[in-house]
């Protein structure tokens, strides 16, 4: 990461444009009202287009013209992607849209509005908040609340555990494999891809926990961004548990305006594909992300198309008589499908992604073990995560460590987690994956 002070002007531009737009949207009706909304949206999307997509689009244009033996006269821009751009831009757009819809009063205090856009716990990687949830909190008086502060600190500790012990540990193995895919066999690539699934979950949700916990300590409530997506029973359900703030943003501001599910079947499938392709594009200016998004769109569409057939199939094989078994295989299949799509998310290039897939299906062999302790730590950390999340998902009322009534049990649990972080955590300053979006 580089520190470029002038990039604060980008935030400044977004804040000024949306602050003014919000006021003018509320003061006008009809076409003028719409015009100010369009100005706000175009301004925000333009910032994204320039800093995030300009070179990608230019690259594709170069390739296209090259096919006709032409050269591309448009120059490339040598600019950095400002951190958190996609997040705070979407948060700002959400404000303009909600004011337009009449669901949110325009914020007249410039400082409060600026704080809404750049509230630091969630500025760089979400959750992408809605104005109805966040703005009013800046007007409320916040008093020290012991329980709230403790809950916030517990979340922060858990977030650091997921990031340092699990995500960054898995990253060691994943990076060594995915940065050299041509040298690894299919078995190793399958393992690395599964590890990546856990890595990205712990990295992103770990950050979210730290952000939400930090806000909680200060007396602010941010929305939940993850609800144990590992246990999703379908790809559709996965997107209700994963990066909830972004999924709901696309649902409310793209999917529903396109008609949502109250349209013909073919239109529904089209709407879903559009949403997922754009979601892929939101993640990065690269064909790999677009394909990743598309694959997930295909999953959801196919799930809808085949829903009745699945129910019949489950009845036919009698698995519906064994709910736990059915639940297990639904979870495993969903996890496998989502993990497969993440090959494109993680691969350094499209050709790498295709090579990974080819090798998975054609090349078996021994698992790559450069350092056995790395693998042992990886499995241990995943086991710890699954233990905790299984308990939270299926055994809520059973013995709790962090929320135990016994003070000694609680203190030992907190201290043990700190010890595990110190013993097993990776402190080499690995960046959060979602900072790059």
């Amino acid at each position, binding site marked *: 990461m580089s520190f470029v002070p002038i990039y604060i002007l980008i935030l400044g531009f977004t804040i000024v444009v949306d602050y003014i737009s919000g006021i003018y949207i509320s003061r006008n009706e009809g076409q003028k009202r719409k015009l100010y909304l369009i100005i706000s949206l175009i301004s925000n999307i333009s910032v994204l287009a320039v800093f995030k997509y300009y070179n990608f689009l230019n690259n594709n244009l170069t390739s296209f013209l090259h096919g006709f033996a032409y050269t591309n006269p448009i120059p490339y821009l040598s600019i950095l992607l400002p951190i958190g751009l996609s997040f705070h831009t979407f948060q700002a757009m959400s404000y303009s849209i909600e004011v337009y819809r009449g669901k949110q009063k325009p914020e007249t205090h410039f400082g409060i509005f600026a704080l809404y856009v750049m509230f630091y716990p969630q500025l760089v990687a979400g959750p992408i908040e809605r104005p109805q949830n966040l703005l009013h909190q800046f007007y409320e008086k916040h008093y*020290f*609340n*012991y329980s709230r502060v403790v809950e916030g600190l517990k979340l922060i500790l858990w977030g650091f555990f997921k990031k340092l012990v699990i995500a960054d540990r898995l990253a060691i193995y994943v990076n060594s494999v995915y940065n050299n895919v041509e040298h690894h066999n299919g078995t190793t690539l399958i393992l690395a891809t599964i590890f990546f699934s856990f890595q990205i979950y712990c990295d992103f949700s770990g950050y979210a926990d730290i952000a939400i916990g930090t806000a909680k300590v200060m007396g602010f409530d941010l929305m939940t961004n993850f609800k144990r997506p590992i246990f999703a029973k379908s790809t559709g359900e996965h997107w209700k548990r994963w990066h909830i703030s972004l999924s709901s943003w696309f649902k409310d501001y793209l999917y529903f305006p396109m008609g949502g599910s109250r349209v013909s079947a073919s239109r529904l499938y089209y709407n879903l594909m559009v949403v997922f392709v754009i979601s892929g594009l939101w993640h990065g200016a690269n064909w790999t992300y677009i394909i990743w998004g598309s694959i997930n769109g295909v999953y959801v569409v196919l799930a809808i198309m085949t829903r009745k057939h699945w129910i019949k199939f489950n009845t036919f094989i009698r698995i519906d008589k064994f709910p736990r078994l059915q639940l297990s295989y639904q979870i495993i299949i969903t996890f496998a499908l989502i993990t497969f799509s993440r090959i494109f998310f993680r691969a350094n290039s499209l050709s790498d992604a295709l090579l990974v897939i080819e090798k998975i299906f054609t090349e078996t062999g021994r698992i790559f073990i450069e350092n056995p302790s790395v693998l042992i730590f990886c499995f241990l950390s995943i086991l710890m995560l699954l233990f905790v999340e299984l308990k939270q998902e299926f055994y809520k009322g059973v013995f709790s460590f962090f929320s135990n009534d016994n003070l000694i049990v609680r203190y030992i649990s907190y201290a043990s987690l700190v010890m595990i972080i*110190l*013993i097993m*955590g990776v*402190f080499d*300053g690995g960046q959060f994956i979602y900072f790059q979006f």
Partner: protein
Amino acid sequence: MGNQFSIFYLKMFTFILVVYIADFSVGNVLKYFYFKQNSGFQYRTTYAMQQTNADFLIFGSSRASHHYNPEIIENSLNLSCYNVGRDGSYIFYHTALLKVILNRYLPKIIILDLVKGEFRQERESYDRISNLLPYYDSYPEIHSIIELRNSYEKIKLCSKIYPYNSDILSIAIGNTEFNKGRWIDIKGFSPWYKTMDCPEKIDTSFFNTKIDNVKVSQYENFIKECKYKGILLYIVVSPYYLISDITDNSIKISKDLAGKYNIKHFDFSQDTTFKLKCSLFGDLTHLNIEGTRIFTQKVIEKIIKDNQLNMQYTKNKREGVISAISSLDGMH
């Protein structure tokens, strides 16, 4: 609210105390078992820092630990020899190790084995300074090197557990008899018995990357430490199976700096005895036991020849070296 604050501070204080006690206890247990190891990389670092008194030391990375056989050196030069090379170590490690050793005793001859790209900018070489963390408390002379790892390293080292971060498994294994069998250790030398299959194609593309001046500065410190303490230092680039013809900037810099301090620099990276000879390599970057035998012999011959020239042109300062050289003369 004031009451809530008081309860919070009290409980926070209690929690910090619990963590401190746990950290202190677990950290000291880890420390005890770390230094109790009797095999493996960590043991060898400890041995090098605390025990070796060899006249002849070899510093470097895995290439050093696999390429120089101390027994051959001992038999040829009549000097005790120990190989302090360690896998995955860089100039920071070598310089730190040297500082600690020289504070304890002065060896007569040192070889520093450098790799291509030794001084290139890369994060990993700073991460590998973690190998020195367990020694932070005992050796103030290496603090400045350890603190290069990260600007918060000093704060992290307030924790007694942190120096042993990620080492719990290796510490546990290093205390077992089983580990002795895993790593053959001949005075620090790790022989590689495997012979690699000849590759059909190798990528020899090489691009000189940016140089890290901090690394160059540490290398210069290494040279100065040896020079000013009257230790005979040789900088060696050991053989590669195949290396690009483009001169590596790091090798060039190491040569120039060695020349500045009048230190001998032996570059075997393109030596035709080893180039493209599969039978002498365990993998693309490490000699096998046969390759090591030939290479160690070649290095010894160079040292002997160099010392004969030295005797002609310079007055020798230290008796120990004179007697060693005399014994070298006696061999011819």
